[in-house]
């Protein structure tokens, strides 16, 4: 009997040994968020706004209404976060007659890859004024190419469509298109000098020729800029006709195909010795700006040297690169591109484009798809495209390309 009791006692010991409390609370930190209004606004009064907090690790999004430049303490799970602020403020300014008036403007703020840990955390976000575009806008970017019916990649049909979103004739002469040097899918460790607030680092710049009035674009009309201006559907049933293109970028007869009927853009600079191939998965971003005179000194005046520290396990190396930089204040329009799976950071300053858009997710769904700007409204017969400098909102991701056609929705 004693042995039976011993056996049962042993069982009890095992039972007790195995019991423990499983309900650990979720680790959280209190976030104190302070918003700095733009310095150039006089006596701004907060009107309304929203802050959106995105957990980078889980994808969870939290939106909170704002009632001032201070936010009540926000309780967040420990992790990596992005913050986006959109608000309206009233402020004093002067009108055309130099009279002091009370006006309303949109302001924004952005802060990304913020590590929220440690129980409490303070974050200050500098807000900037939202600028309205009154010129050309990029209406479509087709960067991923297509696949042939045999399943092979086809890259010659990449293009941009640029739209006159105003009610007056604009001239495409001197209009430049540039691809960002920085990659939205690779945040650079100890990146320096970080010039993104003032400049956009670029790897390629191509310019539409002309002396100033050679290439008019009517209100509500667009131009197409592509690599090879032919009817690609003849070669690839999954592609389309780009013989309607207005300009080609051409990188030299030894590496590129030239269609003589279509004028070529001027190649200003490029880090590529080969053909300019837009990033196939959409990890780079694009800006357009005006350079009215052919500027041979762009190469030297706008040279940009930067470095970052590459870390791969125990391997650490300082990396040096050369590119060029375009002042943000001359940029007419900008579109940040990335993918859901790979986005890590902004290549463009948030004042140029607050968020980003995408075609597919770096997967096969991207082929034959573009990013396309949404229609805002119509003014008479003229379609006005949506342009709030916020690509996630302004663009249709993974859209069907329609080169030369602006579709009413």
């Amino acid at each position, binding site marked *: 009997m004693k042995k039976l009791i011993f056996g049962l006692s042993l069982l009890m010991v095992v039972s007790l040994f195995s019991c423990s409390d499983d309900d650990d609370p979720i680790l959280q930190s209190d976030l104190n968020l302070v918003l700095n209004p733009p310095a150039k606004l006089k006596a701004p009064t907060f009107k309304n706004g929203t802050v959106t907090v995105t957990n980078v690790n*889980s994808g969870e999004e939290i939106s909170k209404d704002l009632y001032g430049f201070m936010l009540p303490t926000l309780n967040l799970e420990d992790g990596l976060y992005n913050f986006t602020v959109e608000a309206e403020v009233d402020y004093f300014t002067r009108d055309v007659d130099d009279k002091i008036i009370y006006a309303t403007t949109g302001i924004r703020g952005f802060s990304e890859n913020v590590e929220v840990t440690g129980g409490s955390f303070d974050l200050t976000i500098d807000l900037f004024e939202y600028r309205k575009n009154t010129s050309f806008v990029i209406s479509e970017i087709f960067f991923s190419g297509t696949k042939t019916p045999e399943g092979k990649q086809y890259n010659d049909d990449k293009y941009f469509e640029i739209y006159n979103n105003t009610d007056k004739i604009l001239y495409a002469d001197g209009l430049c298109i540039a691809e960002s040097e920085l990659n939205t899918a690779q945040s650079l460790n100890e990146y320096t000098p970080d010039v993104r607030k003032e400049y956009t680092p670029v790897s390629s710049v191509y310019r539409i020729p002309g002396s100033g009035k050679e290439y008019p674009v009517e209100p509500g009309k667009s131009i197409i800029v592509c690599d090879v201006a032919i009817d690609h559907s003849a070669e690839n049933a999954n592609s389309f006709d780009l013989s309607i293109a207005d300009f080609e970028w051409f990188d030299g007869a030894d590496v590129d195909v030239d269609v003589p009927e279509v004028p070529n853009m001027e190649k200003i600079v490029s880090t590529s010795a080969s053909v300019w191939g837009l990033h196939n998965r959409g990890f780079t971003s694009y800006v357009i700006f005006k350079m009215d005179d052919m500027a041979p000194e762009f190469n030297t005046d706008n040279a940009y040297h930067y470095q970052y520290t590459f870390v791969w*396990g125990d391997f650490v190396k300082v990396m040096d690169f050369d590119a060029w930089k375009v002042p943000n204040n001359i940029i007419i329009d900008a579109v940040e591109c990335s993918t859901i799976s790979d986005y890590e950071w902004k290549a463009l300053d948030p004042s140029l484009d607050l968020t980003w858009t995408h075609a597919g997710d*770096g997967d096969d769904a991207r082929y034959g798809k573009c990013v396309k700007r949404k229609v805002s409204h119509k003014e008479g017969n003229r379609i006005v495209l949506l342009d709030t400098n916020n690509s996630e909102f302004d663009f249709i991701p993974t859209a069907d390309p329609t080169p030369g056609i602006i579709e009413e929705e």
Partner: protein
Amino acid sequence: MDLSLRVFFNFIVYMLTQKLKSILGIVILLNLTASAFAQDRNANAVDFEKELIQIQSGIWDNPAMLGHQYNKSFTDVSLAWKQRKANGLYRIETGNKTSSIDFDAYSFKRREKNFVFGRASYSKNNMDNIKWNTVSDYSELAPYIVADTIGGKTYGENYSFEGIYSLIQKKSTYALQAKYRSSEDYRKLDPRPKSTVSDLEIKLGGTREINSKYMIGLYAGYHDYQQDHEVDALRPGTGIKVFYLRGLGISDENFSTVVTNSGGVGNIYEKKGYSLGTQLIPIGQTGWYQSFSYKKSKLELLKIVGTGYDIVNDLDAKEFQFTLGKQYQFTNKIFKINSFASYQSKTGSDYNYNYNRQLLSVIEKYSAKYLDGGFTSILLVRGIKHSSLYQMEIKYSSDESEYKIANSKNPKQEVEHVTLRLNTGRNLQFSKSSLNIKLEALAQYCINSDLTTSSLAKGKANESLIVPNYEYLKSDWLSLASNIRYDFDTKNTYGIYTKLAYQYMIIENSKSQYSFNFAIGLTL
């Protein structure tokens, strides 16, 4: 230990250390086993009475109980063709059709001072229409599955070896058990996951007679599991999203990525655990029996980054199992009544990093609980020319899982079932042959279910994974099964048999499922 046993155990140890994956090894092992144990042909009776044995599975967890598990020596070698096909609802991650060719050889030998059990098996299988899963051993690793939405057909091979040596010393028995399993699963089209599994379990057990009527047992086990997993794509230009799932369709945004022909993903699943158990059984054929076991394990999912790795998730699991029953033996009847209960809890943690791979936080987010309990009774009536078996089981089970989100409603799934099982069998002994016939009816009724989905679920996981699985889990169904085995004694030294098992499942509001198992075998 005689020479053949020594060779047998040396060979098992060799298998474990070298991870030998050769069918040749199985054949050699089989020959050694067969030559060591060939004599009484009791495999037919063991097969007929297996429910009588399985009812006390908690006892047999202790390898030192081997001598009480089987009362006669036997050897069974078989080659089987198995297939399962779901025409309607099914578990999305494991596919709707499974086919396999299985080779299985096992042998038990009773000796005066020791007992020996050996088993070797090989399986070549494939699974069709798997989605949201690229790993092997789904149930071992869930919810931390690396998933794609394209899916496809998986091809696999599985090898397993098991050996138990049990030594009797006066009123005590000591035993060592070693199990090793190795498998490889892969797909032939993009995305191409490939998993290689190595799974080792070692147990030490003992029993001691505490009086003239009862003995107690104790065992301790160690479990070491590893799955090397990779997903690649070969087609130029392809890009396929893979999700690192965290439970209920929610994925880790930082680790989830796109696999291209120039870059795949590599992972390691590591699981280590231990188990402890106590048992009480009657020395004779009548008396109470009881078992209690506790198992604990920790699983880690490691993503390979360069020459190192990052921990993506970990999963702590605890399991308690308890049985209490009484067995009776009359002149030609054995009756067992059994109550059982088990409880399993799992808690999973998410590891969050910044883009420089610095760990920011480890947060316990996932929890799952499984509970079951019920009663089984079984009656075996033994005769000279025929035996009969009657079994009834009623079981309640509850299964719930939840993912914690700090600022919104937690996604959650709960399902409660009641299951009723009726089983009957008849064994007929002829002059040179024997026939087993069994019929089983199993009905499952869902008494409660609830699902809360989350907008955090990615890639249409709610529509194509969470909801279809939930519909399958909460469905009521009725399964009817038959199992026929015919043994023919061709010579005095061995016999042959054929077996056909067929199961048909009627699922409410869905199409049916079926499975069959056709085997030919050799008894020594």
